[in-house]
């Protein structure tokens, strides 16, 4: 086993983690709320804001994955059962996949629906696919399914972190907390 003296994630990894978390916690309920509102300027604004947040998550997620690949993460506590280590790795990999795939599916869906994404109303993103009604409807289902998968995984992720912190009283959560929060 690799010996790793790191106690915490790097400040960059911690910042990206919490920024992505915050943005997802805004974008997800926004998406659920806005999708079947009657058409109004308010709805158009919400859709744009949702997309801007999504693009931001996508960029942060890509950055974060590069950072994760190029920087060592702190090792898991030595006494952790093997199945928990495996479960944690699998969950983390899926979370990384989804924080990229969810906004990507939204971007593609938007293009297929015929609405280009213009980040903050300033930077137009290329339409990777052209307008296509069938594909647009399919991508709605894909976007939704990926989102609810993300919700389930985030639920597990949070429960696991809280269990480690409050029941096992180990370092798992503290490794990812900013400003030395939770340190005794």
């Amino acid at each position, binding site marked *: 086993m690799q010996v790793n003296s790191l106690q915490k994630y790097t400040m960059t990894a911690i910042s990206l983690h919490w920024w992505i978390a915050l943005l997802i916690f805004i974008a997800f309920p926004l998406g659920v709320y806005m999708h079947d509102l009657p*058409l109004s300027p308010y709805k158009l604004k919400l859709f744009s804001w949702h997309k801007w947040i999504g693009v931001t998550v996508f960029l942060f997620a890509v950055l974060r994955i590069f950072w994760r690949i190029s920087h060592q993460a702190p090792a898991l506590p030595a006494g952790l059962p093997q199945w928990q280590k495996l479960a944690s790795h699998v969950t983390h990999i899926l979370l990384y996949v989804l924080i990229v795939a969810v906004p990507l599916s939204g971007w593609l869906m938007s293009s297929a629906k015929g*609405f280009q994404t213009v980040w903050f*109303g300033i930077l137009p993103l290329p339409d990777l696919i052209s*307008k296509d009604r069938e594909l647009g409807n399919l991508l709605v289902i894909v976007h939704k399914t990926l989102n609810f998968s993300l919700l389930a995984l985030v639920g597990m992720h949070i429960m696991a972190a809280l269990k480690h912190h409050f029941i096992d009283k180990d370092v798992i959560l503290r490794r990812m907390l900013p400003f030395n929060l939770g340190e005794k």
Partner: protein
Amino acid sequence: MSRIYIKHLALIGILLLSGHASAVEFNQVVADKSSINFGYKQMNVPLEGKFKKFAAQIDFDPAKPESAQAKFEIDLASIDTGSDEANDEVVGKAWFNTKAFPKATFVSTGVKPLGNNRFEVQGKLTIKGKTLAVATPFTFKPDANTASFDGAFTIKRLDYAIGEGEWADVSTVANEIQIKFHILAAAKK
């Protein structure tokens, strides 16, 4: 003597040319090869739409642009904004109110040459009961027995009360609407 001869030749040439030009008058609009599209911005996102049904009458002789005429009648309910949701919305009262105002019309009042096969047509555009003077440049492209007329101009939707109430907010749907037309017409038979 040879100078007089050249002068005559030149004169005959001019007569032939102008005679040829004025004989070609384009007045048979080919509906399925003509289109009226529009571009607009929604939250700064560029979008395109079109009117699927319209009637156009034109009478254009490039040699006599001042006597050219054009009349368009656009079936507003045939609008395609690019999304079903918006198509249902824009026929309603706040937008075109197509029940009360089913058609938009454009009637030309004059055409002037701009040179290089470019012209400008002035006319009156009526939408939703409001009539305003508009002008648009267009390019005339003759090709055997047909000719195409291509041009674009911008109108402000609020000038015609297109999008009232909460929709009057131009920060979501921009005020400027770009109208692009491509008209194909055959020569008079």
